[in-house]
């Protein structure tokens, strides 16, 4: 994974700048469109399920759109959307405690599964499942920091501003998270090649 991809893939302000001629709503839509995949990745990092992440991401986009009047433009659109996403995820967690999971039908599952060949899927899934399990073992703060950074939507400084903690704290959370993941995966037999 190249780092240039990490920074160019989701630069919402660049999009907003490009769309300066367009009316503000259009610019916002464009920025939301750019942020959408990163938001989904973040939510997947938190919940470990693409269906749920998709569902939440849609909710986040709609929430952002409904609350667009409240966006003052001081923050970057990306940061603002991630704040909404973070709240949406917290709401979901709260609801999950009081309500059982809804059943997703086979048809809905079918239409949402990522398209891939079975062999590749099997090979990938083994490691991916292990990572997902390991993610579940992380302390909430570390997991959140890692998910935010791995979403490729925000940099450390932006995450720090969003969470209201020093940049060094965010970095150390991500570092501990990665360290624990590495330990856990090594224990499961996926360790780094010597």
């Amino acid at each position, binding site marked *: 994974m190249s780092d240039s991809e*990490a920074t160019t893939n989701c630069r919402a302000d660049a*999009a907003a700048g490009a769309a300066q001629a367009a009316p503000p709503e*259009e610019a916002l839509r464009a920025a939301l469109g750019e942020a959408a995949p990163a938001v989904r990745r973040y939510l*997947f990092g938190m919940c470990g399920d693409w269906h749920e992440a998709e*569902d939440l991401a849609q909710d986040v986009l709609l929430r952002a759109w409904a609350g667009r009047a409240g966006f003052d433009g001081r923050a970057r659109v990306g940061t603002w959307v991630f704040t909404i996403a973070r709240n949406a995820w917290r709401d979901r967690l709260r609801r999950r405690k009081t309500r059982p999971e809804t059943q997703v039908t086979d048809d809905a599952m079918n239409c949402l599964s990522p398209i891939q060949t079975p062999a590749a899927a099997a090979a*990938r*899934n083994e490691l991916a499942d292990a*990572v997902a399990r390991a993610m579940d073992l992380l302390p909430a703060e570390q997991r959140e920091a890692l998910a935010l950074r791995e979403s490729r939507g925000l940099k450390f400084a932006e995450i720090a501003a969003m969470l209201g903690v020093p940049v060094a704290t965010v970095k150390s959370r991500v570092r501990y998270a*990665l360290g624990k993941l590495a330990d856990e995966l090594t224990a499961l037999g996926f360790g780094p090649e010597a």
Partner: protein
Amino acid sequence: MDCQTARDMLIDLLYGELDDGRRREVEAHLAACGPCRAEWDRLRFARASVAEMLAGEPRTNMAWDAFANLTEPRRVAADDRAYGAASRAIRGGTPRLRGRRQRVFALFGGLGAVVAAATILLAVWVLGERGTQVAAAAQGPPEIKRVNVSLTILSQPEGWQAGNVQQAMRRQAEVQTDQPAMNIGGSVQTLVPWNRWGQPVWTGLALVRDRRLVQRLPKGVSQVRFADVPSGILPDTVRLRSLDAPAALSILEQNYQYDLASSWAVLDKHIDKPVTAVFKDGRQVSGELLSFDGAALVVRPPRGQVRNLARAELRAITFPKLPAGLLSRPTLVWELRNAAAARQQFEVAYLTRGLTWRADYVLKLHPAKASDKSDRSDKSDRSDPLAITDTCDLVGYATVNNFSGIAYENAELKLMAGDVNVIKPEMQVQQWGGGSGGANVLLDATKAQMTEKSFFEYHLYALMRPTTIADSETKQIEMVSGSGIKLTRGYVYDPQVNATACRVVSELWNRQSNGLGKPLPKGVVRLYAPDPEGVETYVSQTTIDHTPTDEKLRLPWGYAFDIACTARQTELRHSGPEHAATWRYSIRNHKDHGANVTVVVHVPRTTYEATCPGFRWHVREVGVVEIDVPVAANAAAVVDFSYRWNDRSGGGLASPPETRQ
């Protein structure tokens, strides 16, 4: 650089947040320091693993697609209601999407157009005054506004429960899509009512006079479209005229376009074309429609396997645009040559199916008390001391049903009573039980709401004020009312109908002196009477035929509880063509008041002689004799009725002289 500094920077290096100088320093340290390199490898491995996990990311982004679908700016101005404008907007409305998304949309074969089409059609549907459109030849579109509409609902359905069509529609929709409503992309509505077997049902008949003000009508030849016409319209009855300049307007051509975009028609035209299915939870699948039936759609997405989507799971199906040749609403199109002003009032008159009315009566009975002697002697039945005279209040409602496909706002409503001859299409109209749902009852006790006039051989009831009749609505309007009406309670024993019980029949005179005196259209009468606690209770219902004034109204209710009857043949003799028979009827009255029972005897048409000692009898019609049998309270009466008939020379039975009038 020492190890501590280097390790603090590893995380920045890992995520590419180091400037070049720092990066080189850290890399140099890593090359030299084994333990730090081990830590770096560990972090890199962990991040690569996370990347591996994230690689399972779905390539489509349904969250965004759904969001885009919902929030795409509407490209139709609020006042731009013309259908043509809407379709132009559909063609021109490509969504502004960037980068990846754009590619996705391109792959989806113009999903963007779906978005625009769905929203715009929805916008037109919601915002647009459901109405009138004019596609003018050249300059700005002429404007058409509805001035008023008058409805004359002619026929009453015969033996047909209005409201069933709506139910049938709903039921059919449920069968076909497992959904309560057929609403596809917000743009298409099924307007044709059908019965349980999928055949269209047309009942009812109404004359609609629709006046519309046309502005900016160009001189010369132009096309005028009226979209707000019912789907039940009989196109061959449509007449257009200009009220302001009838001579200056000539109609070159008149077309009725009705190939409606029903859900099946639209789906059918989208085979091998892109559609988007929206699930109930908002998720979507887009792709080429391969086939469909009532239960499922088979869709092939641009990438990946063909999917079978259960329609029960779907909330909607959206289409890029309405295929050519299908209309969202039935439309009348005229080619006109106009030589007069640009501002004119047009009147379109046509007959339409789908509007029915029927009369419903509520009869509140105030039963006479057994001890109340004064009530027992009504003038019309002075000779009959056992007759019971009750009083009642009668209210008649006109129940108007509209399933013609459009709403009529502020319509002048007229209801014609009488059986009008209508040529019915060769079609089996099925009926089944169940009434309509909640009815909208208009009640205004303070004044009469409808006036009645006779018209040709019929009666016309006109509502005094304009009313709005929505599509698929049942509306009730008070039509006639009278109070303090006297009605005589009698009992009819007809052994051929019920061998052991007699029917309660109320008779009343439709006269002004009796509190009524208005022509009563055919309808259902529901009887309410107070129970012993004085609470009004539903008792029974019956039907009446069209009843002119000064005619007797017979209202048969249920069977009397306390009067037991038996019939027995005591004699039957045959000698050649000559026959004789005697029947014995015994009637036992267990009530604490007397009852006047009419025994109905069906005799052969060739009967020439009859005797009934001790009782008055008369011939009601050929072959039917009625015997008046007064039975005192807690007493019994035995009637012997003998008659003779002759196969060769019989017939001509007449009532005995004392009962002839």
